[in-house]
């Protein structure tokens, strides 16, 4: 009988960053689902827009710009520690990972807090008009993302302090940063729709 040849993989590293890791692909899949959810909700927003003569309805001022704009800035700034945490993770530098994750968490707490102000400044309730319903839905959908991103980054940060620390945890930090970017970048079109569409359209 002919013996099969062999392909020895024992020397390969037990993990990889970026698109090499299965976690990266899983995260991309989740982003695709949620990006689609955002896109469809924005589509629904403009569909409902075509069904009304006045948008926002008469006597409803558009959402106040202040808190939404502040939050946009906080979200964008949070990209900096996020990038630094990712870079540190790829160098397997535990001290810097800890530092930048903590900074991320602080900014995360800040934009979650400001989000409360945003809801209060929408100038419409969800049960007043279809305009109010879709505006709350869009803001609510993004809020579920910043809340979960804040919480899961929080758990990861605690883990990086308490251990058990293994090399693959640094892959988790790196993948978590991709998701953080997604949540930040997804906000920009939503910010435009919620705050500017009622003014410009």
């Amino acid at each position, binding site marked *: 009988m002919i013996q099969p040849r062999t392909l020895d993989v024992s020397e390969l590293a037990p*993990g990889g960053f970026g698109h090499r890791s299965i976690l990266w*692909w*899983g995260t991309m899949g989740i982003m695709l689902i949620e990006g689609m959810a955002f896109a469809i909700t924005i589509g629904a927003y403009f569909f409902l827009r075509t069904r009304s003569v006045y948008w926002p309805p008469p006597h409803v001022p558009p959402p106040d710009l202040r808190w939404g704009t502040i939050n946009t800035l906080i979200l964008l700034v949070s990209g900096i520690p996020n990038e630094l945490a990712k870079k540190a993770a790829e160098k397997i530098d535990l001290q810097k990972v800890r530092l930048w994750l903590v900074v991320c968490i602080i900014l995360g707490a800040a934009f979650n807090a400001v989000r409360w102000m945003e809801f209060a400044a929408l100038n419409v309730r969800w049960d007043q008009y279809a305009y109010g319903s879709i505006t709350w839905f869009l803001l609510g959908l993004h809020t579920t993302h910043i809340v979960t991103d804040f919480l899961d980054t929080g758990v990861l940060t605690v883990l990086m302090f308490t251990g058990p620390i293994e090399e693959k945890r640094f892959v988790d930090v790196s993948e978590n940063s991709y998701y953080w970017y997604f949540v930040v970048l997804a906000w920009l079109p939503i910010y435009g729709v919620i705050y500017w569409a009622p003014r410009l359209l």
Partner: protein
Amino acid sequence: MNRAQLEKTWDDGRGWYCRLSAVNHKTIGKRYIVTAFGFFILGGLMAGLMRLQLAFPRNTIIGPDAYNQIFTMHGTTMMFLFAVPVMEAMGVYLVPLMVGARNICFPRLNAFSYWIYLFGGIFIWVSFLLNSGPDNGWFSYVPLAGPLYGLGRRADVWAQMITFTEVSAMAVAVEILCTSFKMRAPGMSLNRIPIFVWAMIVTSFMVLFAMPAIMIASTSLILDRLVNTHFFDARRGGDALLYQHLFWFFGHPEVYIIFIPGAAFVATIISTFSKRKIFGYMALVLSLVSTGFIGFGLWVHHMLATGIPELGASFFTAASIMIAIPSGTQVFCWIATLWNGDVSVKSPMLFVLGFFVIFIIGGLTGVMLASVPLDLQVHDTYFVVAHFHYVLIGGAVFPLFGALHYWFPKMTGHMLSERRAALSFWLLFIGFNLTFFPMHILGLHGMPRRVYTYPVETGWATLNLLASAGALFMVLGVGTFLINVWHSRRWGAVAGDNPWGAAGLEWATSSPPPHCNFFEPPTVAGRDPLWDNPPDQPVVVGLREDVRDVLITYVLDAEPDHREEFPTPSIWPLLTAITTAGLFVGSIYTPWAVPIGAIPVFITLTGWFWPTGPDDGGTQPWPVTQRTLPKPNEAPAPGGAA
């Protein structure tokens, strides 16, 4: 290589705790298939009740309210609890075997997806038994399902069941994509991926793009009902048509999510039983991919009767006719494969031939329905019912039965009885045509869908009685199949590794496969590995045997990239599914269930994620030469299939 050690490492264990913690894709896949079949039988019983009621004019066995719930449960169960889950279940079982992997990617997520699917199914069926079954049809249109007309909890139950099943379907889609992208055997470049795996890739992408739409539809429906939003309330600027758009943006791709795996079953079975490579591999794959794209451009043809602008109607008519091109390409490739193949008509092949007849008739009525005037004429009649049963049962259920006959030996190690298989095929085939062909004529005669009875003066009685008689044949056909399965899994002839002489990697291992799937992970030298591989084709060695070590490969050419340690069994996916189910069900009764229910969900998710110790699912001594992980742009490791 120590086989005993390897099996011990990959064994999920016995006993009830181990069963609840199991993460092996074969275990979960079989559970999925059996559960989906359980729902298939329940949905079929509902169909039987409807045929019983409609067998005679002015029948009074079932009242209108019960009838509404019954047809809604039939459609909902068949679409959400049977068709999509069973196709994904086949993927969960087969894709890792076909690409030569030891488990599915994200095995714990896989376990979670099964539990959440099971809980969703139980939830809607228990509600139905408590007289809270949804009664607005499987698409639950507003305003009928909205707060004004949809009384009680019925529409809420439907909407939350959607959430359960979609979460499960999207999780499986991500697992299958990652498995087929990153865990293929070395040498299995993109142009060597088995057709069925390609089909599951396309299906999974469609799930990712389509399912968010239905989740948004069902969520906004439930918000309208529970917290007084006005998405679909025309008095406050909402629009019922928005619901239809959201629903069918999911609902039409859904048809292809069911059909594409079915088409791949057909291609695989035809290739094996013609004893030749599939004709036009590239054309078939491109057809599947383009079906995936065009499938998203058809949804409005479900809404042609709603008075949408004519230009829109024309566009969607054109797209609906265009989808016949990739479908036709596939049919011609199948015929070409059969043409000068050495065809043997075994039971899987019988179902494929039945599929040809039924699906082509369904496709023809589909092209007819794409034309606006005809659609307006027969909209909401039994003609449509006949059409989509020809497409769905022809395009998905017959190939599925073929696939179950084909892979049953792999799953159980025993052959199904050919004699019983032929009997069940003929009962199903004759019964199906007897049931659904008359419905074309009933529809053209004007019989509307979803009526619980009809007067004798309509003249519909004979054809309805014929259809009901056909349903009886189908019941017998499914019954024969179940007896065959029950009997053969114990007493059927022993199958051996490759009873059909097939080419796929799943036939390179024992039947049923060991816990680790392959003692020596294979590499491949062609599209049909068992036919193409030379006798000394390399096998993968050097994976650790004391932990669940798997090989991760590159996306395009499947060269070895790195190793990854896979998770062990865990009870957390089940606990997370329980807390998630609590949140979903609670949210029907009070919005506060969402923030409060999120707390146990967070706790269980954290428990799931938290490593129990550096050695469990954890670290291993790293080779000194490679202290750091490879970066994305570093060159691949040397190696790869010869």
